[in-house]
């Protein structure tokens, strides 16, 4: 009887650990997805393809701030592959740089949130937010969309 319980417990732990890994991948993918949707809205407003809307700008920047806060915590050592991840091994080889880039991203988004009062202030500060995207994707994300 003891053995059975032990087995059940062991399996439960194993499943728990496995799902924690795929959870990390699923969660960070969901966060980056919402980050992308927010970025698209901001990008369209910044280049004049969509009319400026202060509420949308603030909401989108807050979405980005949330992604910038949570995403870097979702790269445990055992989440290097699977789950359709496009994360490159370079993340774990250069963890300090990876985290530093996220720290800069957080700082720039926070600055943008504080600075955005109207269309002019938004358009001034928006490029400093976007310039963070490419650097990380070049080094740490596989090219496919």
């Amino acid at each position, binding site marked *: 009887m003891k053995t059975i319980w032990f087995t059940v417990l062991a399996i439960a732990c194993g499943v728990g650990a496995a799902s924690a890994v795929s959870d990390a991948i699923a969660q960070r993918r969901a966060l980056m997805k919402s*980050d*992308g*949707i*927010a*970025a*698209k*809205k901001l*990008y369209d407003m910044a*280049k004049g393809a969509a009319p400026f809307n202060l509420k949308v700008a603030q909401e989108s920047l807050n979405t980005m701030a949330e992604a910038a806060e949570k995403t870097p915590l979702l790269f445990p050592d055992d989440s290097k592959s699977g789950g*359709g*991840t*496009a994360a*490159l091994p370079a993340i774990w080889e250069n963890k300090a740089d990876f985290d530093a880039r996220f720290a800069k991203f957080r700082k720039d988004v926070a600055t943008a949130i504080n600075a955005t009062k109207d269309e002019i202030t938004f358009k001034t500060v928006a490029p400093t937010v*976007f310039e963070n*995207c*490419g650097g*990380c*994707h*070049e080094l*740490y*994300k*596989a*090219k*496919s*969309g």
Partner: protein
Amino acid sequence: MYRPAWFAAVSIALAMSLAWAISAPRARFTPGQWERLGLTGDAVAGRLVFFEGGCDSCHMKPGQTDPMQLGGGLELKTPFGSFYPPNISSDPSDGIGLWRSVDLANALLAGVSPKAQHYYPALPYPSYRHMDLQDVADLMAFLRTAPAIKGRAPAHSLALPFSIRRGIGFWKLLFLDDHTVASRRNQNPQWRRGEYLVDGPGHCGECHTPRNWMGAMKVQNYLEGVHSGDRKDDVPSLVSGDFATWSREDIVTALTGGFTPVGDVLGGEMTSVVRNLARLPQADREAIAIYLKSSHRRQDHIAAP
């Protein structure tokens, strides 16, 4: 008198010399032929050709951010082994400082070095061979303005039989037939410009086309992407899939700043492609979009008799 051993030896010798002869590197131009074209290179125009071709994406020294630091040495991992693009800085001994325009023309258009050796098609001459000769002359003029950098890239590290350079001669016979040369007929100048950039210097197909077991582009699947099953190795189709939903405007936006219609940012190798294409005139990115969204692309007109 019939002597089998003697006959076999002669046959083998004949076959070997025939193989040697047909695999010979053939330059496109002799220096005299090139001279008679009377082309003068313009470094300012050549700067744009440089970014159309994205020379720096492979030849920039790893760890550099200045595209003019062309010391080479980046490792390109392939199923055949590792290629290390050479130093193409203006250094006379380690780089290409002593090259004439005809040398660059033969390298890019025929995959043949000044020492009459084959280049591996890791140098994308299957695409570059569509380049205009004036563009090649301009590019040479521009490359001469790059600073000289000492040091050579490591030698390529390839498995047998790919390490036998002469074998490329057979590869060229098999895969560089004239059927893949674009026709450029019956279309407006913008479309032709787009076709030129995509199929020629831009060499988009080199990554966006699946390859056969010998590493040649499957021309019938031109630009259809690579679908390996592992998302990290996949290359998106430029014909169907998500790309089919992209507008011309979406393509121009993506090639200018990297932003895709879903708010993603092009990453990996595409980052340097975008960085280079962003330096071209807006009209060139529009021409690429017009060509990519048209239904008269290369795979259509190569099928025509």
